[in-house]
């Protein structure tokens, strides 16, 4: 088990190093200047720019810069944002929990929803219910998230007025509402963006769950369970469902990149103060340090997702436990 973890962590570290290297090369080799970021009001002369470049070490050869960057990274320093004039760790540290909240809720919701839909489909396979849900989940899966987000915003935010259209909290709300009130406020703001991400992802999970369940329902142990006299629900949930869990968990773990991608689009539609937006803005502003660090965090999250999926699979399927 420990050996397995060590190997996986080594692989994850390798991945993160690759991400950092590629991103670093990408942003530093690209045309454009970070020091001109948001320069509409900035009328700096070339000497000033040169001094700024020197201050951030941008005048040195790229290999040297990379060596410095890695050295700093090893000390846990991510550098400073050129645009926000703040340590990158702070900039991303504030945004990351928000994205994690959104992503985790969306992941959990999409998992539950996807498994539920897939289960109903598998239980009613071949019927019109299956057909309708099939088309529905395929349509969800095939819908661009930005588009779905706008539609949900229009319907539930603007037309029906049930939910706030943007932001993570209501900054104008009274501050004496207490922790519960604040949590409810966040929840209300969370619903639409999380639903957007969850619906798209749930489409994928439902399709997968249905397939895994139909396979499992054809397995001999399901026949055994039925021969024991179990009810169809018990057979579906306890026997087929349990054994279909592992592949679906894997898929859920692997959907971390998709959620990260979705967060870039969805966060800007719903004004969610998360990492996707910070990253997107940083790319355009050529805020090198933020871009590289964000890529690194994304890489860590992706690696973590697949690691957690593996652990969850080992939990769900005793055959796949390392000590089995």
């Amino acid at each position: 088990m420990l050996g397995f973890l060590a190997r996986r962590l080594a692989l994850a570290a390798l991945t993160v190093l690759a991400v950092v290297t590629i991103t670093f090369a990408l942003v530093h080799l690209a045309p454009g200047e970070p020091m001109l970021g948001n320069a509409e009001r900035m009328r700096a002369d070339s000497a000033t720019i040169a001094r700024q470049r020197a201050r951030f070490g941008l005048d040195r050869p790229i290999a040297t810069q990379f060596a410095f960057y890695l050295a700093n990274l090893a000390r846990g320093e991510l550098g400073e944002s050129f645009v926000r004039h703040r340590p990158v760790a702070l900039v991303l540290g504030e945004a990351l929990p928000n994205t994690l909240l959104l992503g985790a809720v969306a992941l959990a919701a999409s998992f539950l929803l996807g498994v539920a839909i897939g289960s109903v489909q598998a239980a009613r396979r071949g019927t019109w219910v299956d057909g309708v849900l099939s088309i529905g989940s395929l349509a969800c899966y095939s819908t661009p998230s930005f588009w779905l987000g706008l539609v949900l915003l229009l319907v539930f935010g603007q037309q029906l007025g049930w939910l706030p259209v943007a932001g993570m909290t209501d900054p104008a709300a009274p501050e004496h509402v207490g922790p519960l009130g604040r949590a409810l406020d966040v929840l209300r703001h969370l619903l639409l963006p999380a639903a957007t991400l969850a619906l798209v992802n749930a489409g994928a999970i439902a399709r997968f769950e249905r397939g895994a369940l139909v396979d499992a329902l054809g397995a001999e142990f399901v026949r055994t369970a039925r021969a024991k006299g179990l009810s169809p629900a018990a057979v579906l949930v306890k026997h087929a469902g349990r054994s279909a869990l592992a592949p679906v968990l894997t898929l859920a773990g692997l959907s971390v990149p998709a959620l990260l991608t979705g967060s870039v689009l969805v966060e800007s539609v719903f004004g969610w103060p998360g990492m996707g937006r910070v990253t997107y803005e940083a790319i355009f502003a050529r805020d090198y340090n933020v871009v590289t660090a964000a890529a690194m965090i994304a890489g860590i999250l992706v690696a973590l997702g697949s690691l957690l999926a593996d652990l969850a699979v080992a939990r769900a399927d005793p055959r796949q436990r390392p000590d089995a």
Partner: protein
Amino acid sequence: MTGSATPATPATPPGREARVPLLELRDLRVTFPVAGGVARAVDGLDLLVEAGETVGLVGESGCGKSVTALAILRLVGPDGHIAHGSSVRLEGRDLLALPGKEMRAVRGNHVALVFQEPLSALNPVLRIGAQIAEAVRAHESVTRATARWRAIEMLTMVGLPEAERRARQYPHQLSGGMRQRVMIAMALVCRPKLLIADEPTTALDVTIQAEILELLAELQRKLGMAVLLITHNLGLVAETTQRVAVMYGGQIVEEAATEALFARAAHPYTEGLLAAVPRLDEPRERLRVIPGQVPPATSWPAGCRFHPRCPYAWERCRTEAPPLLEAAPGHRARCWLVEEPARRTRADAPPGEKP
């Protein structure tokens, strides 16, 4: 023996007419939709099993014997369809007419199944103790702890050492023989009246097979249940059953007391089968073979289903489907030879075999 052409009802052992048989199958028909049409996997099958006896159901792959086992418990769905007019009676109760809930009360409780491949028949992600306890709780309102205790007791009974520890293990952590013991424990934990064992030892090595057979015999003695043993292995049938039914083409083609059948097979298929098996006890230079292949279940031949492969077949066999005919008391065969025994003219030479 008369040459009566009237279809015989399933054999009822003499002296038991008054009693309701444990299991009675009448005109069982099961169909499956397939790409090329409809497969008639079981096609008019009659079979009786009395309480406490061991009956063998023998046949080669594709003859419909496993489908029969599943059909008894209405487990052929969702693809399989049990035709209207079929009847499956357990102690007189028509199982095919039962509502779903009552049918579930029969499964595992009155009639239990043991399958061929214990590794795939056990749920890989559940502990074996839980899988057995689940069977108890499905039929009896007992506490979780009681069900668990019953499971461990049953595991001990099937000879699993360290039952308590094993109950916490998963199927993949057991050997093949142990897995099959678990399957048997699971089937018997509710003390069923009938155990249907579908090729229970085929996936096992011969030494393990011997263990399991001993175990089954012992448990049958202890628990007094009837066993329907489904197998392709004639040796197994000979050693363990009292009565045998041979299946071919979705039907019973011969049925008799075990000794009678092995002593003198009435149906040419049974005869061919016995001759084709390499024998440990009496080595032969050359095996007799049944020529050709089993026809697909979508298109059984007209007349006798075995006639294209039968060395004795004559015109009548090609056109008229024979019913089960009584060749001797308690010995029936689905063959016109029963009526026209003179036609069983065959030299020592095996039937026309392709080079």
